[in-house]
């Protein structure tokens, strides 16, 4: 089977990208029969001169304005391989479209108009190629016919642009002078420029090399989803995802990050039937495990014996911003990295760069549209990630703002220590909180119990609410000051107007924690239940309730690895004995100290 390569054509607006592709398609006989004639005919009908770009610019607006608005793909073959040519728009307004096109590419052709010379987007696009990690790049100096095929013009642009590329560490494979409209140096070397003896565009494309497959690297298998189609009579519990790097074989000891849960691979699944006992980089696959581990989609499965990704909440990254609203501090965004989705805040702007001038702007308070910036990010829950230069697939991310992908970033390094957003918040709260003169001890003596938050955790439908209410009633009858807080996710987060699953979940925990802190500060035994909460969320809840006490009662299988659980109840435990066990636990932990019941 033939090799395929994705190539993006970039450059400043009107420098002739679409013309170059149109000509390439026409001269290699890659156009469907009749297409060229149809476009020529259409031009004649509308009394406008024929342009090769019309072969690409399919949208009505594009043809009427004579510019490319959105990325288009065309398919084209050389003797060596098949190409998907991605035509990217050169206008600044459509930068996000250009990036969409370029992010799919393995190679790039950057077009510069010989007559106009290097323009702002010639540089910006060059910078973005380096940002996106595209290694194969050819620079085409187009419209040589307009400068009478003058070698000096070509050499001048080459020297200037090479200098720019050196600054951003990008080494082009070659520079080609061409006249796309005239077909010079497109397929064959041009007779109009005998002074140029290197490669035509077509030859340059064929000279690009495919990146070596990365299945010899460390395993990174981001869990995309976990399937169990029990209703269809399928008992397999399959961890599905794509191997982003490395390979995995039946019998491998694996660890999930950031949760650190471990297991061993028992099978590699496939439809219609499993064929291999291994899977490798690039494959979308699924595995089953020896033990019942409870992880959520987003965790990265790695090999226990290999170098593992970083886990943490802070990292330094370069980002480019495409959002209509600027990127600012103090706002919750959503971060998507591999299959992980977590709330994130901008914690520090180190430097903002104008990518067309390479000049940096210090002390800028926000990152504006089309800016490139070096920043420190903090996620509200730990994530697993790699440095971009170690494993790119797990070292790059996007930021979602108000339903839209608004930024893209590459991780440079983890950032350790320093205060977390949450820690800072609790510190500020303590500082500005005027404590009542009635101390917790005085309250405990009066109420005959200590204040505590009792959290019932476990999977959904394990009867946590029934148990919580029964507990409240028992404690109430014992004369304790207690309150069952039965508040749903929707109620707590609706005020923020976010219907984002990821952001609203963390908001729910945050608000529950704040409420709990007030009510336990008032001396209550507060009872609440939360389903499917993980280690980090539970720790966040406990931390927000601090300095007041939290007791965790887990109903059903205990899926926590690090968070401390005070009591584990069987899913089928009768309510009465469940309540008795919790009361016993409260007594042992001195919440219901007999000392108070004098």
């Amino acid at each position, binding site marked *: 089977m033939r090799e395929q390569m994705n190539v993006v054509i970039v450059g400043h607006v009107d420098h002739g990208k679409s013309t170059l592709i149109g000509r390439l398609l026409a001269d290699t006989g890659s156009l*469907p029969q009749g297409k060229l004639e149809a476009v020529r005919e259409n031009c004649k009908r509308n009394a406008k001169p024929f342009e090769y770009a019309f072969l690409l610019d399919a949208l009505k607006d594009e043809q009427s304005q004579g510019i490319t608005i959105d990325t288009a793909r065309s398919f084209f073959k050389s003797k060596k391989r098949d190409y998907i040519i991605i035509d990217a728009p050169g206008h600044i307004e459509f930068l996000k479209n250009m990036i969409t096109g370029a992010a799919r590419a393995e190679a790039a052709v950057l077009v510069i108009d010989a007559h106009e010379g290097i323009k702002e987007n010639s540089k910006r696009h060059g910078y973005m190629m380096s940002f996106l990690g595209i290694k194969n790049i050819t620079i085409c100096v187009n419209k040589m016919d307009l400068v009478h095929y003058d070698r000096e013009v070509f050499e001048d642009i080459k020297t200037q642009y090479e200098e720019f590329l050196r600054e951003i560490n990008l080494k082009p494979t070659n520079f080609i002078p061409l006249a796309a409209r005239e077909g010079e140096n497109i397929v064959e070397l041009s007779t109009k420029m005998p002074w140029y003896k290197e490669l035509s565009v077509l030859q340059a494309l064929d000279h690009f090399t495919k990146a070596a497959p990365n299945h010899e690297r460390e395993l990174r298998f981001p869990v995309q989803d976990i399937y169990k189609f029990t209703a269809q009579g399928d008992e397999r519990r399959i961890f599905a995802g794509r191997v982003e790097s490395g390979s995995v074989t039946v019998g491998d000891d694996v660890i999930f990050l950031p949760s650190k849960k471990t297991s061993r691979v028992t099978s590699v699944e496939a439809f219609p039937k499993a064929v291999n006992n291994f899977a490798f980089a690039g494959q979308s696959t699924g595995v089953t495990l020896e033990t019942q581990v409870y992880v959520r989609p987003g965790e990265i499965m790695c090999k226990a014996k290999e170098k593992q990704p970083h886990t943490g909440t802070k990292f330094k990254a370069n980002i480019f911003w495409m959002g209509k609203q600027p990127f600012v501090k103090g706002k919750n965004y959503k971060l998507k990295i591999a299959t992980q989705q977590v709330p994130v805040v901008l914690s520090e702007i180190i430097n903002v760069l104008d990518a067309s001038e390479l000049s940096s702007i210090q002390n800028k308070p926000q990152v504006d549209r089309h800016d490139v910036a070096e920043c420190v990010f903090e996620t509200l829950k730990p994530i697993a990630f790699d440095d971009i230069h170690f494993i790119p697939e797990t070292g790059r991310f996007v930021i979602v703002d108000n339903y839209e992908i608004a930024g*893209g970033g590459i991780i440079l390094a983890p950032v350790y220590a320093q205060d977390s957003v949450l820690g800072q918040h609790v510190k500020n709260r303590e500082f500005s909180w005027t404590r009542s003169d009635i101390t917790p001890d005085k309250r405990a003596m009066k109420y005959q119990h200590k204040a505590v938050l009792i959290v019932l955790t476990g999977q959904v439908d394990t009867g946590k609410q029934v148990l919580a209410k029964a507990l409240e009633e028992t404690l109430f009858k014992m004369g304790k000051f207690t309150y069952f807080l039965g508040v749903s996710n929707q109620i707590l987060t609706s005020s923020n107007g976010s219907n984002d699953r990821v952001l609203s979940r963390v908001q729910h925990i945050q608000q529950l924690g704040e409420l709990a802190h007030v009510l336990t500060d008032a001396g209550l035994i507060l009872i609440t239940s939360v389903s499917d909460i993980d280690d980090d969320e539970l720790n966040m809840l406990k931390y927000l309730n601090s300095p007041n006490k939290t007791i965790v009662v887990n109903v059903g299988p205990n899926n926590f690895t690090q968070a401390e659980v005070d009591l584990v109840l069987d899913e089928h435990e009768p309510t009465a004995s469940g309540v008795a066990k919790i009361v016993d636990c409260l007594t042992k932990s001195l919440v219901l100290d007999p000392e108070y019941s004098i």
Partner: protein
Amino acid sequence: MNDKTMTKLDSLEAQSVYILREAYREFKSLVMLWSIGKDSTVLLWLARKAFFGHVPFPLVHIDTSYKIPEMIAYRDRLAKEWKLNMIYGQNTEALKAKQTFPEGKIDRLACCKSLKTEALKHTLAGDWPRYRMNHETGKYELDTNKEPYTGVIVGVRADEEGSRSKERYFSPRDRNNDWDVGDQPPELWNQFKTDFAPGTHLRIHPLLDWTELNIWEYIERENIPVTKLYFDQGDGKRYRSLGCYPCTSAVESTAKTVHEIVEELRAGKFANIAERSGRAQDKDGGGGLEGLRRDGYM
């Protein structure tokens, strides 16, 4: 040692499966459009790959009533065999009033808009009846679920036609099903637009990178059943693209097997002829299909 090379078809398959799984994880109300043609049948096969033999969402077919009868028979046979959650929708009013092109009342584009685009819009929104296959009786019954679908998986390919070459894998549509071509979401590093404001929905296009040839190569490799309308039945004609019979014409071809079709596309008579050349609506007016697609056509 283990062979660890990915062929082009392997890569296309892996990417499509990845997209399908992203869609399934992110959309509660997800549906796949099945036109019965080769592309969406490959898509259906990829769904079975992605979910290890299951298809965990309904399949929707828009029945214009002008489909070639073999297509409907083939649809229902596979629906039963593969235990699919099969739903169809239709513009029953227009059909009753005979407001169609074949009956001479309206032109081709208006007919497409009415029988396909409108029917699709309302079937997805749930405000027109949906008919769902009862697997016990094998008959279609009125579906009680009227929830709008927020994620719609569609088997369009970039190489089919100009406006499709500009599509995203995850493409937003507003309340009126409108497609804002000039302002599409960025898509990079396999991060797609999976967040959407209430009232809007997303079209998901797992087959964008496939060509017609890739589709047939994959059908051959995987041995996927397709309707026999694609093959020459002895009269030297076959369908290359399936639509409504009044507007789709067969092409001259003697390809009788999948392999012969692959050869025909690779080096034979169709190597340089556009697939949709047999579809009349593409030619009406300039940018006919772009207009239809802006309005919600597939």
